[in-house]
């Protein structure tokens, strides 16, 4: 059914119009067969596909235009969103790619997509002053072990087991002509994205670092977070890890609880 009747309620008209917008092939009905209907169909699909391309530039660069476009159209048809903000369109794209059969051989692709998504989330996250090392230095060792560090609102991190996802993502995100063609070391990698000031920054974060941040995000005290890091990697250097995280601005200044 496509919209054609003068007697439709507005809701019925919208139902039929929306159905015809996403219908495959030629629809019947006096609206959908008009040449102008294609303008709306094209505008809608182009809006979604262009938004995915803008929000997942590393995925686009890895798979190329044709593959990306086909995957984007499939995603757009399957995953309607109520959010009209195109700059955050595609929240579920990484999960979709994990189940998208044509991408089955590209096991790293969902992980790369997830880092693109983290960039978008970090870019639009709330601003907050970051905790500095001086504040922590004033605490006694006992206080330090008990204090809870809250991750910065823009902080996003993930560990990818078995896939050099961060290197793949970074090479494609930073692509600026000076191609890094060094062979990939095919092993697990983690990354953290963060927007401490005006722009999004990123760094590699090992398994211990990711476990540490996970524990902090769960509200665990520093002592427990350190234990989680050591559980992930028995050789973890907690002091060095914490120094790096503080230097990057990975925690909120105002949330020191002891």
């Amino acid at each position: 059914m496509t919209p054609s009747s003068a007697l439709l309620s507005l809701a019925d008209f919208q139902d039929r119009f929306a159905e015809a917008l996403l219908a495959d092939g030629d629809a019947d009905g006096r609206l959908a067969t008009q040449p102008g209907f294609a303008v709306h169909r094209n505008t809608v699909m182009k809006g979604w596909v262009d938004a995915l391309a803008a929000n997942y530039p590393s995925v686009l660069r890895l798979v190329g235009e044709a593959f990306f476009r086909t995957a984007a159209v499939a995603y757009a048809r399957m995953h309607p969103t109520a959010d009209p903000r195109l700059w955050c369109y595609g929240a579920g794209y990484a999960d979709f790619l994990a189940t998208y059969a044509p991408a089955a051989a590209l096991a790293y692709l969902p992980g790369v997509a997830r880092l693109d998504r983290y960039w978008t989330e970090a870019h639009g996250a709330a601003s907050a002053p970051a905790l500095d090392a001086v504040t922590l230095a004033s605490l006694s060792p006992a206080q330090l072990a008990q204090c809870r560090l809250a991750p910065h609102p823009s902080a996003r991190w993930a560990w990818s087991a078995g896939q050099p996802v961060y290197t793949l993502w970074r090479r494609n995100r930073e692509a600026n002509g000076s191609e890094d063609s060094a062979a990939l070391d095919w092993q697990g990698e983690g990354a953290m994205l963060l927007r401490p000031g005006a722009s999004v920054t990123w760094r590699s974060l090992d398994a211990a670092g990711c476990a540490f941040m996970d524990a902090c995000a769960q509200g665990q005290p520093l002592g427990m977070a350190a234990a989680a890091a050591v559980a992930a990697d028995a050789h973890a250097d907690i002091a060095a890890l914490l120094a790096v995280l503080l230097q990057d601005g990975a925690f909120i200044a105002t949330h020191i609880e002891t």
Partner: protein
Amino acid sequence: MTATLGAGLALKPAHYEAALSCDADGMWFEVHPENYYADGGPRLAWLEAIRSRHPVALHGVGLSLASASAPDPAHLGRLAALSGRIAPAIVSEHMAWSAWRGAAYPDLLPFPRTGEALQRLVDNVGRMQDALKRRIAIENPSHYLRIEGHAWDEIDFMAELARRSGCGLLLDVNNVHVGARNLGYDAAAYIDRVPASLIMEVHLAGHTPDPVLGQALLIDSHDAPVAPEVWALYARLVARVGPRPTLIERDDHLPEFATLMAERARAAALMAPARMEAA
């Protein structure tokens, strides 16, 4: 406040620096508020920087006022928050729908102009004006389709919407031209009939012929300079209603800032004699 607005430009991120330092007389900028519904970050900071130097108008595309349902309260709340934050010179939305049953479509979709649709729009414009505590402007749509069941002429429909809701109109001259060509009505007659007292803002933009159908189907693509026919309609409008805040819209194939400034200077020049007459 709108009395100080001359000719302005739709603001694009690529032009932030040039926009910030621009000091043309009567200059103002317009943005889609949806692009700034973020908790923080550089985009919002940029908008606030622009706002510290220029009047800014918010031109919404996502509230879907012509739906048979109320606008998403979350998005209306975000618009109200952004409006409070940057004190816009004008807030506008479209006479169209784009969200329905949990799906947001990145387009401005048409509907039959029935009494039911009119009442839905009156209610939804009222909700928007209540949330923002201000009068808003509603933009006339582009048309690509012959829709059965129109009970109202478009101008009468908009005038009645304005009368019942208290809103004003954003008259998009390019939309009038595109719709007139696609549906076969007289653009000049349309321009001549829009009630002058309701026009809060005017939009000018470029269009492109459909790649297959050519001139038989014009597309409101915002990716080209304002067409000569649209300039002629604009001059005709200004001669009748006097100067109104006028915006040059360009979303794709973005040229240099100076190229857009030349287009807005042309709009300003067309308004200058009318402005002197009004003074």
